[in-house]
């Protein structure tokens, strides 16, 4: 396998164009088409809120875009110059309970080939100093969320895909995430957020999943 060169990210994201191009996307889950006919394009510095009622496919869309779920039809095109195109954050934080917060962050920083001081930057941005040497197991839900989202602040990915990032966070920390998002987008990144809450950070675009719900056909589908 090829080794990944250490690329300083974040600072030079404006140099090259980052695009996320989605056309005619549809996805199935559990034998049912969740959404269909979804198309949009995001470029440097754009962001999008993915809204819609429960079960309308917000999480499914993010998982398809992140490459975790195969789409039924359509294409997702990502143009980015980074070794790491996307940073995904789901309902669960992916922290290893037996490792300390610092160890968790260092692992992701190494895997993402982040810049040398990226871990320290992320720690200060998320104000994690107090819990650095605590095993992630011992953290409360809010702290866990913060430690998990600190991955974003490692600053390596061009496109952020966040599923309900504000869960379990108090207002102070919601602001922290908002600031992270603003900084990311201003430096030329792309962000997608699936959320019920109206964030303090205002995305440039908005997509309502209710508009892409699969239409029920007349009678049973004959050609699936």
């Amino acid at each position, binding site marked *: 396998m090829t080794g990944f060169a250490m690329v300083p990210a974040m600072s030079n994201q404006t140099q090259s164009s980052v695009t996320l191009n989605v056309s005619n996307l549809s996805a199935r889950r*559990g*034998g*049912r088409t969740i959404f269909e006919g979804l198309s949009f394009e995001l470029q440097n510095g754009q962001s999008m809120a993915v809204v819609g009622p429960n079960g309308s496919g917000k999480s499914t869309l993010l998982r398809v875009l992140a490459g975790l779920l195969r789409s039924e039809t359509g294409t997702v095109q990502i143009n980015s110059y980074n070794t790491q195109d996307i940073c995904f954050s789901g309902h669960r934080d992916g922290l290893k309970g037996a490792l300390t917060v610092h160890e968790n962050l260092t692992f992701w920083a190494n895997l993402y080939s982040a810049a040398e001081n990226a871990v320290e930057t992320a720690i200060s941005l998320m104000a994690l100093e107090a819990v650095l040497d605590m095993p992630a197991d011992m953290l409360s839900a809010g702290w866990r969320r913060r430690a998990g989202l600190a991955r974003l602040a490692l600053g390596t990915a061009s496109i952020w895909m966040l599923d309900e990032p504000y869960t379990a966070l108090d207002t102070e920390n919601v602001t922290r995430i908002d600031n992270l998002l603003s900084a990311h987008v201003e430096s030329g990144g792309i962000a997608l957020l699936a959320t019920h809450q109206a964030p303090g950070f205002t995305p440039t675009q908005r997509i309502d999943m209710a508009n892409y719900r699969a239409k*029920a056909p007349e009678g*049973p589908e004959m050609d*699936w």
Partner: protein
Amino acid sequence: MHALANPTRFLKLAATIQPWAAGLCILCFLFGLPIALLFSPPDYQQGDTVRIMYIHVPAAWMGLFCYGVMAAGSASYLIWRHPVANMIAKSSAPIGAMFTALCLLTGMLWGQPMWGTPWVWDARLTSMLVLFFLYLGYIALGGAFDSPEQGDKAAAILALVGSVNLPIIKFSVDWWNSLHQPSIFSMAGISVDAAMLPPLFLMVGAFQLYYVVVVLMSVRAQVLTAKIRAAKLMRTT
């Protein structure tokens, strides 16, 4: 081949083939069974025991054949996402397991008079026994998930892994067998007389046609079930 991936087209074709296959299958059994079990000449060494071979050999052949179909169907499902290929693979598994069990059972019946014991660790019988467990694993894995699609895909990968492993298992068991017991009366060592061939071929044909009929029935049922399920899901959402 790809044209048949469409379930609706497959249903039409299956409906045409099925009665013919069923008729031929009955004919093969009607002629094959009496010839094999009553009218064919007994073996000069084994006597009437040799008649077990007319069931045992086609069953062993079908046990391997079904696994081959299963692997090919699974590959086609994983690569091209052909739903019908997956259904054929899925319905081949229990039939193949049944034929493998029949092969083992008739092998034991044959072993009782020939070896004096129903089970010896004969190389071929042992390989068939492992094959039987490969079938069990496939069937169990396919049904172990809440999402049927996930079960189908996992089982399909297992079928491919198993098809790579099968020759290795065969090779290992053959070597192991030669090391431990140089068998005098191997099941392999039967010289086939020309008079044995017609009933043998009739029985192979009967088993093969039986397989075709049952797989077609099973796939048709699966297609219809899937259509009903899709229709129900559409109504609820």
